């Protein structure tokens, strides 16, 4: 029995599935909404049994959810699994989403909680598996330094920087790491982070301040000597 048939058997109330089309996303079917539909409309569709609407939500948020989880775990395979679990949980529990907060806040909360559970469960198993860096997006001081390096050295330097930063992030406690990831990498506001982590904005600021100081301390020696070592 293939997956499509299983899906049809499991969800008789959902939109009929086109079994001949393998190009679609998670839950194919005749689309009742456009890619630009607001989250609230898509959620109502999902609640009404049109599971294909959830596909649009997945496409909309998968990169951001993956980014949060990846930066918390520093392991792309783990992040892949956890991100999938996040969307499965979100789909299973979407009837509990009352719209009191933004959908992405609710989704981020699931992502953060799932990632924290995963990290605690695998506390002793920790190794990095890092994503590729998209060099064309790098700017500022690092781009300047890279431009003055030979290509082979540039790759080594980037990889080393990446590893050192991930190593430093992993030295932080989970709550400090989460706060740094959400603020510095995901670009969320203090208020949004407070909603996701269920703490006050003051606590978020305090954690950020502490975490950045710690990171600075962890990275200081490396940044001072490491880049000097690569000077040509």
């Amino acid at each position, binding site marked *: 029995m293939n*997956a499509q048939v299983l899906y049809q*058997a499991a969800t008789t109330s959902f939109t009929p599935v086109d079994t001949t089309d393998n190009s679609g996303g998670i839950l194919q079917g005749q689309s009742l909404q456009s890619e630009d539909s607001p989250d609230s409309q898509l959620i109502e569709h999902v609640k009404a049994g049109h599971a294909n609407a959830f596909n649009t939500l997945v496409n909309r948020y998968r*990169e951001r959810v993956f980014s949060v989880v990846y*930066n918390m775990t520093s392991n792309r395979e783990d992040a*892949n699994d956890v991100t999938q679990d996040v969307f499965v949980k979100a*789909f299973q529990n979407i009837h509990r989403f009352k719209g009191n907060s933004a959908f992405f806040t609710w989704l981020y909360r699931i992502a953060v909680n799932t990632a924290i559970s995963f990290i605690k469960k695998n506390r002793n198993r920790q190794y990095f598996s890092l994503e590729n860096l998209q060099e064309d997006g790098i700017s500022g001081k690092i781009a300047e330094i890279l431009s003055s390096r030979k290509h082979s050295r540039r790759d080594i330097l980037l990889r080393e920087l990446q590893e050192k930063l991930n190593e430093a992030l992993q030295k932080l406690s989970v709550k400090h790491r989460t706060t740094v990831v959400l603020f510095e990498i995901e670009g969320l506001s203090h208020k949004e982070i407070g909603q996701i982590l269920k703490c006050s904005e003051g606590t978020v600021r305090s954690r950020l301040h502490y975490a950045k100081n710690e990171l600075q301390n962890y990275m200081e020696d490396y940044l001072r000597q490491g880049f000097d070592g690569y000077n040509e």
Partner: protein
Amino acid sequence: MRNNKQPQEDPIRLDDLFQLKRQEKPDQQFWEEFDVQLQQKMLGSMVDRRNLLDRFRQFTLRKILPLSLAGSALAALVVSLSPLWKPVHSDKPNTDVEVAALSQPSNTEIESVDFHEATLSATQVNFDSLPEFSSLELSVDASLNAVYETNGLVASSDSLLTGIAEQLF
């Protein structure tokens, strides 16, 4: 000495590293595999959920329902038979109302009182005069379904037993 070279004039800051971190992104192939895996997981979770519901339904039908039916039947049987358990029948039916005045010295140990062997027309138990005892067996013949009259109180055999039990315990 670890490093004699001068530090760079404009060292890399933490914000530069965060900016670098934001560039760690999966490629398109990763997302294609992600979609396939997510689809399988969601299908699996839906099938699992359905199986769980089926298993629960089957478990209810096979185990809980027969057990609850048997329990209900047993409870009904117990309730229907419970009035028959109270009386203790004797071989000799005694229709006469016997009254017995039982008053024992406080230092006498009473093991059992058989109301049928009382010689008086009624059996009266004076609880005030009874000593402390560990157990007391009392039996009243069902055939003595007459009215007992003790100290001006009119009581049936059932209520007499109940009264005695309340006094004792």
